[in-house]
């Protein structure tokens, strides 16, 4: 799912800056079709297949998030303070979205795969490199949630 990031960089001429993007993006344009589908799927699921999109997370999780200042915990699909319209005017929220995106894009291409490529497809094919990557995903995620969240939020 993350190879489309590479394809888009190549389409936009990133090959001039780095050989890494010097690929024939037309041959990997299939991954753009898949992500267009993923977006259509999101539209269909949210607008045609859902009545209430609130996510019923565990009560301990709600309590912990309220401590951190997330008021929408348990009542929304995404936290309002990070993804709501007003959040786009807030320097801190905007920085979190951009930095989160940078880490996702950089890490996924460095590890040559994301959750779908390693945790699902790679492990399904019993690949040791994928297990290493998934262990990395969890180290990163646990550090973020347990050590960095109390500092950030």
């Amino acid at each position, binding site marked *: 799912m993350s190879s489309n990031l590479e394809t888009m960089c190549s389409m936009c001429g990133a090959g001039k800056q780095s050989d890494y993007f010097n690929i024939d993006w037309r041959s990997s344009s299939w991954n753009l*079709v898949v992500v267009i589908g*993923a977006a259509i799927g999101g*539209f269909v699921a949210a607008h045609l297949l859902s009545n209430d999109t609130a996510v019923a997370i565990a009560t301990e999780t709600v309590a912990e998030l309220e401590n951190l200042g997330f008021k929408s915990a348990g009542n929304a699909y995404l936290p309002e303070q990070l993804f709501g319209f007003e959040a786009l005017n807030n320097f801190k929220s905007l920085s979190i979205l951009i930095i989160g995106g940078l880490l996702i894009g950089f890490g996924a*291409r460095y590890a040559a795969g994301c959750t779908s490529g390693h945790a699902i497809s790679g492990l399904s094919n019993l690949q040791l490199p994928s297990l290493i990557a998934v262990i990395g995903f969890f180290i990163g995620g646990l550090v973020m949630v347990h050590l960095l969240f109390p500092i950030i939020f």
Partner: protein
Amino acid sequence: MKRTAGYLFVGIFFGIVMYKSEAASWFRIYEMFRFDAFHMYGIIGSALILGVIGVQLIKRMNLKSFTGEPIKIASKERGFKKYFFGGIIFGLGWALAGACPGPIYTLIGAGYVSLLVVLAGALGGAFLYGLLRKHLPH
């Protein structure tokens, strides 16, 4: 054309599953990293069980694709550092923005405009990796 329609269908199905299973929810990812619920582990675990069975069936029965070609699943390149360090960086982003690359598109489709910012960041991150690649341990 048939091929493109296939990719589109897979994408749409993926998007619906990501949204409806709530794997695209920031809250579920936070809950997963706190080990407060089985939810995300159930999604990943059931996908994995089906995946392992599917891959084994394809390999042992030499199944062909819809277009009649043999299915080849490339092995991952050997290595440690790129998977480990790349994985940690990805995990930090996964927990912070609460989305992995696929659900970013699903959420944009669902109408969460702010995910466009995350997508811009992710494209920037991929570009940055391309620039710094030669200087990183792999």
